[in-house]
């Protein structure tokens, strides 16, 4: 049991799937508001088996098992094969643990929603698809999980489908990630076509593909295509536009997408394919540059957002950029261990504090009667004490305050980037990326604490909606908040102007009501807060995490480990004191600046925004990227669709109609003989027989 996870490995995707099926079929009729039970049990069970898997991997098991052959095409066998190694174990732990906590939180958050069973069915399916993705030992199976994740994100972002903005956001998320999926598929096909033809039969198993990669002349293109797929799923520029809109879904869904599932899929894919990517340093450079640019861009946008969840969304994009930057820094075999383990470590710690931040934001939103616009509330640290300190833990970890989770993982990433500048031909570029990463770290600390101070410090302001019976009108209220930040908010309004509005309306509102969320929602917050504080220091500086990945994955016996593929040189894991001091100072400076701007002298940001209004508007309007994409891609595509519609309507349909017109015309010619007169019919019959007889006689 603790040596070989293969007997129960398949249960990890199967249990949430079973839960989803039960919730979907029994939920609406029989379970009703108990619909969370099958999914909760499924995800907790999956988490249990994930822990067992991690233990057996720690005991030295690395391997895969073919459960059955999914399908065979020619000499290609696609198998349902799952694997267990350190990377899979870490991903499974992250997905199922965070997923289970989110399910528990959602029980409180979604209570009373008419789509309660539907929500849990989709969440269960989401977890099943994601666990399948990270444990698949076969690229086609991975692709199946990949698409399953995409579908579930569509279902969940568009959960309140009667709301036009949610439906549009769901469609956008699906289409944009679809764009990346095409890249992924092309990459897989290239790997297969130009893969090891000496192997017979062809196989898309990871070991076979990696073993044959070295001789593949198309490897660079294939890797780039894989990166396009990963960029779509993990929201890297320019395919990042769907992620902020994904806020239209219920908050637990945002937490699920941003922390545990979906966006980590791209990071996982690139980490899994590191043996391929290390062979093509040019593609690695593209990855690193795109990643650094994404992280900086997202951080700049996050500076001015007033929607608490939007700030978190852009911070996710920025942090994903960090992970890709680490992966892209693996441009030399010596760096592989440091870079890849840094990326996965950041993924792991980020899952904790980002899930925490989203769930805490959800708790704020729940308490504030579904208001999420930071201009409408403030000074909530007395009103929502538990939410406040858990949020603070998450924010501090995200900002990279020394000795918290984010600090250690971010430090590893910048160390990897700095290391990459010593190797290969693109050293100076990586040096520039290192500087961008440090700037982004400072920005991260600043915007995170801006959101924190605006929400929890200052004068206590609570919107009236908080005291109303906020049974479940998520949809309308959030649409309202959305409308607020879509408008051109002036700087003065942005930070403290709406207080008058909030106090202005008076009514029979009972202001003595307790606003803090129910324990069902607070317990997951506390668990995650502990994780956000201590996971980093427990696993990072002690080297446990990196050694786990290195010993049980990268040095694995199969070809998926890197031994045999690379001239694998060990670089001792050491702490970079100089870097740690630098990034610690930057993080604290960012926090201090935020404190000065938003607590000490709240008039300053408005003044700065006025004096640099061009830049401010640029950031506030997301660098107009949505508008640019609309003009460059959406409009031409719509025009093309219009042309296609005309062709379809007039030419294709015309041909089909013509084929139908011919029999109609013949029928029109002979129709008059159907006049209903018996004798006329008899006459025609007699004439016909006569004609035949004549023909026979004359022949």
């Amino acid at each position, binding site marked *: 049991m603790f040596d070989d996870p293969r007997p129960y490995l398949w249960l990890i995707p199967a249990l949430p799937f079973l839960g989803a099926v039960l919730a979907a079929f029994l939920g609406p009729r029989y379970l009703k508001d108990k619909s969370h039970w099958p999914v909760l049990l499924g995800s907790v069970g999956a988490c249990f088996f994930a822990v067992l898997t991690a233990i057996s991997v720690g005991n030295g098991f690395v391997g895969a098992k073919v459960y059955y052959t999914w399908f065979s095409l020619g000499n290609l066998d696609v198998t349902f094969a799952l694997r267990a190694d350190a990377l899979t174990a870490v991903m499974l732990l992250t997905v199922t643990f965070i997923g289970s906590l989110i399910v528990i939180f959602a029980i409180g958050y979604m209570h009373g929603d008419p789509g309660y069973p539907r929500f849990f069915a989709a969440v269960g399916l989401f977890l099943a698809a994601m666990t399948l993705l990270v444990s698949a030992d076969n690229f086609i199976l991975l692709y199946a999980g990949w698409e399953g994740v995409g579908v579930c994100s569509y279902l969940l972002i568009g959960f309140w489908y009667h709301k036009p903005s949610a439906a549009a956001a769901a469609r956008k998320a699906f289409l944009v990630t679809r764009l990346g999926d095409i890249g992924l598929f092309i990459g897989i096909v290239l790997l297969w076509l130009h893969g090891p033809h000496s192997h017979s039969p062809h196989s898309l198993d990871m070991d076979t593909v990696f073993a044959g990669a070295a001789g593949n002349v198309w490897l660079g293109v294939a890797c780039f295509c894989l990166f396009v797929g990963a960029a779509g799923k993990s929201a890297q520029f320019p395919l990042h536009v769907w992620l902020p809109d994904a806020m239209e879904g219920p908050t637990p869904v945002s937490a699920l997408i941003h922390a545990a599932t979906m966006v980590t899929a791209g990071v996982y894919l690139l980490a899994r394919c590191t043996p391929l990517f290390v062979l093509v340093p040019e593609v690695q450079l593209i990855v690193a540059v795109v990643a650094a640019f994404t992280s900086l861009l997202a951080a700049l946008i996050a500076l001015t957002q007033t929607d608490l969840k939007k700030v978190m969304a852009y911070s996710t994009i920025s942090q994903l950029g960090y992970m890709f930057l680490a992966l892209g820094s693996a441009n030399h075999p010596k760096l592989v261990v440091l870079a890849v383990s840094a990326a996965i470590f950041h993924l792991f710690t980020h899952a904790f504090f980002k899930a925490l931040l989203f769930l805490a934001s959800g708790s704020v939103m729940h308490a504030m009667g579904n208001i999420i616009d930071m201009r409408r509330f403030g000074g909530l640290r007395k009103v929502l004490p538990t939410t406040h300190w858990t949020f603070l833990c998450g924010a501090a970890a995200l900002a990279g305050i020394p000795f918290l989770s984010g600090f250690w993982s971010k430090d590893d990433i910048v160390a990897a980037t700095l290391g990459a500048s010593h190797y290969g031909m693109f050293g100076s570029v990586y040096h520039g990326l290192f500087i961008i990463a440090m700037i982004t770290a400072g920005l991260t600390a600043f915007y995170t604490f801006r959101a924190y101070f605006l929400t929890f410090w200052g004068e206590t302001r609570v919107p009236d909606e908080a005291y109303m019976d906020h049974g479940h009108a998520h949809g309308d209220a959030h649409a309202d908040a959305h409308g607020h930040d879509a408008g051109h908010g002036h700087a003065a309004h942005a930070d403290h102007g709406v207080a008058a509005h909030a106090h202005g309306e008076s009514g029979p509102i009972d202001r003595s009501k307790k606003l803090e969320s129910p324990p069902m929602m607070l317990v997951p917050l506390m668990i995650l807060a502990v994780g956000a504080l201590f996971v980093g220091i427990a696993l990072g500086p002690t080297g446990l995490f990196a050694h786990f990945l290195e010993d049980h994955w990268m040095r694995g016996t199969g070809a998926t480990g890197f031994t045999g593929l690379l001239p694998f040189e060990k670089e001792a894991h050491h702490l970079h004191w100089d870097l740690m001091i630098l990034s610690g100072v930057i993080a604290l400076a960012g926090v201090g600046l935020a404190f000065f701007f938003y607590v000490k002298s709240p008039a300053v940001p408005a003044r700065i925004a006025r004096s640099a209004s061009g830049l401010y508007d640029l950031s506030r309007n997301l660098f107009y990227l949505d508008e640019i994409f609309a003009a460059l891609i959406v409009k031409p595509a719509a025009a093309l669709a219009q042309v296609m519609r005309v062709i379809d309507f007039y030419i294709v349909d015309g041909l089909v109609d013509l084929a139908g017109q011919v029999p109609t015309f013949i029928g029109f010619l002979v*129709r008059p003989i159907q*006049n209903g007169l018996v004798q006329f019919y008899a006459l025609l019959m007699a004439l016909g027989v006569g004609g035949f007889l004549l023909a026979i006689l004359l022949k």
Partner: protein
Amino acid sequence: MTPVSLESYLLVGAALFTLGLVGFLTRRNLIIMFLCAEMMLQGVAINLVAFARYRGNMGGQVLTLFIIAVAACEAAISLALILVLFKRRKSLDVSLWQDLREPDQDPIEDEEPLPTPPRAAPLPTLPVAGREPVSVPKENSHV
């Protein structure tokens, strides 16, 4: 006595068939048309019998017996149908039944309609059995 030649039989059969055909195509009375159809059938039957005798085997004769049996059944059915049709329109005119034509075609009207038959005298009605007649017609008052 010289045997009657095959041609004579065939001529009689052909004559019967042709008369029947012409009658079927030209007459409009349903019963007459039916009789004409029967006549065509008998023309064919004569052919069969003649050929059977000429060839010296009994197959044609047996078939003719069958034809006659079937024709009897057919007569029963078609007379029943004609009766139903008559009840519907109070007429035996076949041109009244054109309903199975194409929907967008006009019915074919005869320029020269059939002479309407004189109204038949009302049939005498019988009183209900076991009950005294209520009113007695005047013509019969002297009885």
